[in-house]
């Protein structure tokens, strides 16, 4: 018996037109359905629609010939009926992990909300919250209960969200890119968690661009393109013998191998950015602990590491947005440094259109906004949209385009491709490599995705608890990891 | 709302009468200190003067038995009643009168109205317990009138001896009620004086007042007062709105109309500076003002147009309707003749580059809403012949400031006292000389030796007929200056609900509750 049946689901959104077009799906208990597709294909809208949220906007139109959950027809269900399902029957992990926690409420209040709605006793609640946080891969759950989203790293927020979606024991869990901000070890744990939920009888709908993840946990896979399901079948079958061009492209684009040798850049290899024993503390937490390195012109330093290990903090220190408690960051010459932030949405002025954003960041010698959008594979029609009207991957690419609009010498990228499907991701990586080759661009490239880092970095630094536990040439480190932690990461990403 | 229409309600004895006043709350309950109308209003219930007046305006004895002037007018012999005590037990006698007059004259008391009353008293001689003799520096025929004012009422010498600060909280008199307590901004509670000796000329029965207590509340807003009366929260209100007075009958409310004595309500033109230093311009103004139709609608028939500088309560008043007959053509001719022949775009007359402008400061505390509307109408009416009358509404302090600085060409300033001697206060040339505070009463700035002479003679003479004649002549002169535009008597209305027997005394027209009975 299927838990969820969808036939001919069509969604129109104001400003974007038809976003989903005749989508049909079935999902049974004990089953994991992977939904993949290019950025902007409509995956997140599908997730929001399945929990009845798109219909809350009076200007949106949602129609389906069949939409049943557990035998109940939801096409005509009222608000109350939908609400009964949410949280307790259907759990949703939203893609906007960095903005989806109420900044005024503590972790325990946010995770426990579903339980509170269902009037679970307070004592029991705490127990279940802690358990859920642990299952989502947050080790120091008890210590985090009283914190608020502003005090958490990106990956921590994402795990808190995952915990909040499954704490209620939902029979259908919809996870929209639940591992984008997670390092390989933790991502693996979260994926295993989803699998075990299904093994325990729940149905899981996993939206991801990570085909590796799909292969790991999904029973079946649906490929979405421009709002339509173009391919549908068992995961093993589809991934082994992709029928549709999009699927094939996705598979081909999975990053593999080392950084391709670049033709010698025309700049001399001189240090351009240095960190000398920088340390940054927040209260008791030492986010960055005595980190030193030097970045040379035209090279890429990859930074990988555990979630919450201080990568974003390091990025903020490097660009001067924060000051180290001790140690120093220095620049040599007057390089133009730009950041691609981990949370692009927050870094856009909500009143500016994409066009304005790009124009305002534009510096001499950089391409035009239209050209920049083209380079990051975005349609020029997006120029008039505001950030809130973009999909997660679209935002991320606008953030990259904005950084490139300054014609930078150094690019500090904080998880720049985490929300991108592999095809698009490959394009962006090629773009960056091309820039490095042609213009000697230097990069600090923060990512939890070891394959991506390997593909783009000359050298790599591995962080754990604020410290660099391993560093050296990328291939050396990958081949002979010095620390146990690095070994763990590498094995988890296989 | 409770209404006492229908069957005639039965008067009962006892109970608490609630009075709501719209006048300012006194800062001191002793009317000797300062001396304004609100103090007179309240103190009528617990303090009594030596003399009163009857309905015809004739002086009648109150705490005194009689008062006689010597032929030269320099001494006054006053016989006192000997059966009266203050409510603290102190007997009322000649020593008490002496103490009161000295209290009025003491600079520490800072009396102004009462001080003017006894200004000319050089010394007070105690002849015996029930006789005093006042020795005056100059004759004052108005002596008994001024002593009949509430601001010169008699207080217990023991009370006075407590000092101003204490005496202000609860002055001790001989009246039908006693000040019990005062919660500022809220109310003063008065209790019945059970040992009251009926001396009040208004009283209609023997023994103390009927009501046991008066709660004297301060409700500054007229609409609120009216609502409180309608809902039965209060029994008597003062300063009702004209429209409410007109409607009172239909609502079953009682109405007491007690115009204030002495001067009428009038607009005065400043003869000391342009443009009203020219008699023709003044006359043109009077001819153009045309307040009568406005008085009719604005006051809903509750006020009558006056053509005299004196109140209709004053027997010696001189009225001259013809002098104020509206005639726009005559006004235009007068102004042409006076040389105001050019016109601005807006129609204001001009002469030698000056516009025909008159500043008219209006005290929003003293002029009621209806009166301010009337001024606006006068402004519009006079504008038709080319005047630019600039109404300048302002608070009381600023208003006095404007007058003291002579920043006015027209003004309406109320003045309450008893008797025609008010003419001397308002129009004698001495009254153009400012007091230390800058105050002067002669707003028209009249300085006419003939007028001064008539007013001085009237004050000196002891012959009532001659006095009346002198005041008539004085009024003639004042009216002929065209510097005064009388409007109506100083309005003094009271509405009652659930109470009978409310009357006003005939000196300063304040209500007395000595006969009042609740009807519940």
């Amino acid at each position, binding site marked *: 018996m299927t838990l969820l049946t969808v036939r001919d689901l069509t969604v129109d959104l104001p400003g974007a037109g038809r976003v989903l077009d005749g989508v049909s799906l079935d999902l049974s208990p004990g089953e994991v359905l992977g939904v993949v597709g290019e950025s902007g294909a409509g995956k997140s809208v599908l997730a929001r629609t399945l929990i009845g*949220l798109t219909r809350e906007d009076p200007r949106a139109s949602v129609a389906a010939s069949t939409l049943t959950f557990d035998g109940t027809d939801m096409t005509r269900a009222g608000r109350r009926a939908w*609400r*009964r*399902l*949410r*949280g307790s029957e259907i759990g*949703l992990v*939203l893609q*906007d992990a960095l*903005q989806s926690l*109420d900044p*005024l409420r503590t972790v325990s209040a946010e995770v426990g909300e*579903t339980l509170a*709605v*269902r009037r679970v006793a307070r004592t029991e609640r705490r127990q279940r919250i802690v358990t859920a946080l642990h299952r989502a891969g947050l080790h120091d759950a008890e210590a985090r209960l009283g914190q608020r989203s*502003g005090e958490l790293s990106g990956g921590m927020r994402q795990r808190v969200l995952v915990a*909040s*979606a499954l704490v*209620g024991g939902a029979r259908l869990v919809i996870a929209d890119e639940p591992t984008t901000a997670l390092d390989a070890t933790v991502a693996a744990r979260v994926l295993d968690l989803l699998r075990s939920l299904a093994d325990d009888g729940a149905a899981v709908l996993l939206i991801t661009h990570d085909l590796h993840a799909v292969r790991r946990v999904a029973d079946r896979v649906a490929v979405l393109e421009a709002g339509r399901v173009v391919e549908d079948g068992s995961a093993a079958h589809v991934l082994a013998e992709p029928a549709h061009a999009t699927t094939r492209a996705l598979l081909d684009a999975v990053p593999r191998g080392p950084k391709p040798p670049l033709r010698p850049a025309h700049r001399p290899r001189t240090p351009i950015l240095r960190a000398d024993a920088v340390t940054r503390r927040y209260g008791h937490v030492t986010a960055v602990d005595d980190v030193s390195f030097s970045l040379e012109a035209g090279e890429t330093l990859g930074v990988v590491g555990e979630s919450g290990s201080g990568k974003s903090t390091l990025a903020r220190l490097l660009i*001067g*947005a924060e000051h180290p408690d001790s140690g120093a*960051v*220095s*620049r*040599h010459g*007057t390089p133009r440094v730009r950041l691609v932030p981990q949370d692009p949405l927050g870094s856009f002025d909500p009143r500016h259109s994409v066009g304005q954003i790009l124009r305002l960041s534009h510096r001499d010698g950089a391409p035009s906004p239209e050209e920049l959008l083209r380079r990051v594979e975005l349609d020029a029609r997006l120029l008039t949209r505001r950030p809130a009207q973009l999909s997660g991957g679209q935002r991320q690419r606008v953030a990259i385009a904005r950084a490139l609009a300054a014609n930078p010498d150094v690019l500090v990228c904080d998880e720049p491709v985490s929300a991108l499907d592999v095809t698009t991701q490959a394009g962006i990586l090629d773009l960056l490599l091309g820039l490095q080759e042609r213009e000697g661009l230097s990069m600090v490239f923060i990512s939890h995705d070891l394959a991506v880092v390997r593909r783009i970095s000359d050298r790599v630094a591995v962080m754990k608890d604020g410290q660099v536990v391993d560093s050296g040439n990328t291939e050396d480190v990958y081949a002979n990891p010095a620390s146990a932690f690095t070994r763990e990461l590498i094995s988890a990403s296989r | *709302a409770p209404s006492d229409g229908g069957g005639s309600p039965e008067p009962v004895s006892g109970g608490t009468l609630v009075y*709501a006043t719209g006048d300012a*709350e006194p*800062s001191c309950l002793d009317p000797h*200190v300062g001396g*304004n109308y609100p103090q007179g209003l309240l103190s009528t219930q617990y303090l009594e003067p030596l003399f009163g007046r009857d309905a015809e305006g004739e002086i009648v004895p109150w705490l005194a038995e009689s008062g006689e002037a010597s032929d030269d007018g320099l001494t006054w012999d006053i016989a006192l009643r000997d059966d009266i005590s203050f409510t603290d037990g102190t007997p009322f006698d000649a020593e008490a009168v002496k103490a009161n007059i000295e209290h009025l004259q003491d*600079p*520490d008391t*800072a009396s*102004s*109205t009462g*001080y*003017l009353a006894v200004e000319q008293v050089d010394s007070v001689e105690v002849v015996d317990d029930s006789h005093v003799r006042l020795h005056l520096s100059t004759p004052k025929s108005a002596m008994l009138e001024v002593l009949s004012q509430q601001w010169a009422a008699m207080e217990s010498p023991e009370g006075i001896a407590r000092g*101003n*600060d204490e005496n*202000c909280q609860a002055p001790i008199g001989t009246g039908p009620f006693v000040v019990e307590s005062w919660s500022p*901004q*809220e109310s003063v509670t008065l209790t019945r004086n059970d040992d009251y000796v009926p001396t009040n000329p208004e009283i209609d029965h023997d023994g103390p007042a009927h009501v046991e207590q008066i709660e004297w509340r301060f*409700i500054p*807003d007229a*609409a*609120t007062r009216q*609502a409180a009366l309608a*809902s039965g929260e209060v029994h008597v209100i003062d300063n009702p709105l004209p429209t409410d007075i007109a409607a009172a009958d239909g609502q079953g409310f009682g109405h007491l109309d007690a115009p204030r004595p002495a001067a009428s309500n009038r607009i005065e033109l400043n003869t000391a500076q342009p443009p009203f230093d020219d008699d023709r311009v003044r006359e043109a103004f009077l001819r153009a003002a045309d307040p009568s139709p406005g008085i009719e609608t604005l006051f809903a028939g509750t006020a009558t147009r006056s053509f005299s500088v004196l109140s209709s309560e004053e027997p010696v008043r001189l009225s001259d309707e013809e002098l104020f007959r509206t005639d726009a053509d005559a006004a235009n001719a007068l102004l042409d003749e006076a040389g105001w022949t050019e016109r601005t775009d807006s129609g204001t007359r001009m002469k030698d580059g000056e516009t025909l402008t008159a500043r008219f400061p209006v005290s929003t505390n003293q002029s009621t809403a209806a009166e301010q509307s009337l001024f606006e109408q006068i402004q519009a009416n006079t504008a038709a012949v080319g005047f630019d009358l600039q109404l300048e509404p302002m608070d*009381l*302090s600023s*208003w*006095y*400031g404007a007058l003291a600085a002579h920043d006015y060409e027209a003004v309406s300033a109320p003045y309450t006292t008893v008797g025609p001697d008010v003419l001397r206060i308002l129009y004698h040339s001495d009254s153009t000389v400012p*007091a*230390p*505070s*800058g*105050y002067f009463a002669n707003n028209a700035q009249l300085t006419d030796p003939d007028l001064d002479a008539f007013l001085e003679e009237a004050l000196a003479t002891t012959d009532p007929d001659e006095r009346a004649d002198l005041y008539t002549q004085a009024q003639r002169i004042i009216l002929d200056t065209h510097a005064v535009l009388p409007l109506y008597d100083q309005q003094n209305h009271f509405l009652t609900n659930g109470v009978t027997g409310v009357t006003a005394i005939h000196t300063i027209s304040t209500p007395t509750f000595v006969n009042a009975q609740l009807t519940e």
Partner: protein
Amino acid sequence: MTPRRWAVSLRWIAGKLGAAIGVVWLVGTLVFFALRATGDPLEAILGGPGSQAGEEAVQAAIDRYALDEPLVVQYLLQLRDIATLQFGDSYSRRLPVMDLLAAHLPSTLLLAVLALALAWALTVAGALVQAVARGRLGALVRAGLRSVEVVASVAPQFWFGAVLIMVFASSLGWLPATSASSDPASLVLPVVTLAVPIAGFLSQVSHDALDDADAAPFATTARARGAGEMRVLLRHTLRHASLPAISLSGWAFGSLLSGAVVVEVLFARPGLGRLLQEAALARDVPVVIGAVVIVALLYVAVVIATDALELLVDPRLRRRPQSLRAPDVAVGA
């Protein structure tokens, strides 16, 4: 709380109190010189405007109030009075100002506190209605609510109160028009008169903030967890929406005290507002200064309270935003 946090809180409170003293000093100084610059206190002492007092009385007043001393000396005397909260005697009432203030403050405070509470209650009620009103009919209700807010926030108290009196006291006779201080029913109309415009204003402010918060992803997440509109409102969006309103509550309290003047005059209630109005009109300097200093102290207390409340509601405010200066990074040779 840990000792460290106690220490932080104590430092915060001490800082605020220090600031409060500064404010009171500034206010006192300002009012003293302003009133002096705008009129001679003699007139007020001599029984108000239009006084006909003679030379002797004038001299007596000058002696009593040290008016012949240089202004600086008088100012210092005034400061001493303020520091000891002894404001001397009222010019016109001749009573110690402290006694007057003590007599009038409680009634005004009661009025203001009740009105602020009612205003907040109405604001929250409006937000609740807004939250549950969904769909086509809901849209109408919400639009209606917005209009009511605007109308309420521009309702003149002197007029609105008069209408209330006319309807509920004169015509229906349900409530007393004026206040006998003992009767709680007499508080109803004044409190409503005072609260409605403030409620309109606070609703406007929080309504806008509510719409913003409602569009944020965290509200969507909360809905996805099965939270109903009421819960989303009470547990999430209202807190965000209340921030601007809380920060304005101090100001609202201020306008309550100004509004209290109108209401106290209209409903014939004794109170600080009326005392101040009368004193101001009579240029009774000691009373004005006393009242203003007390009001200043009250404001400061309210502002401290709202600041604390804001910090409580929004922990993010505990950090200062960085300045707008460009980042400084050492630039090597």
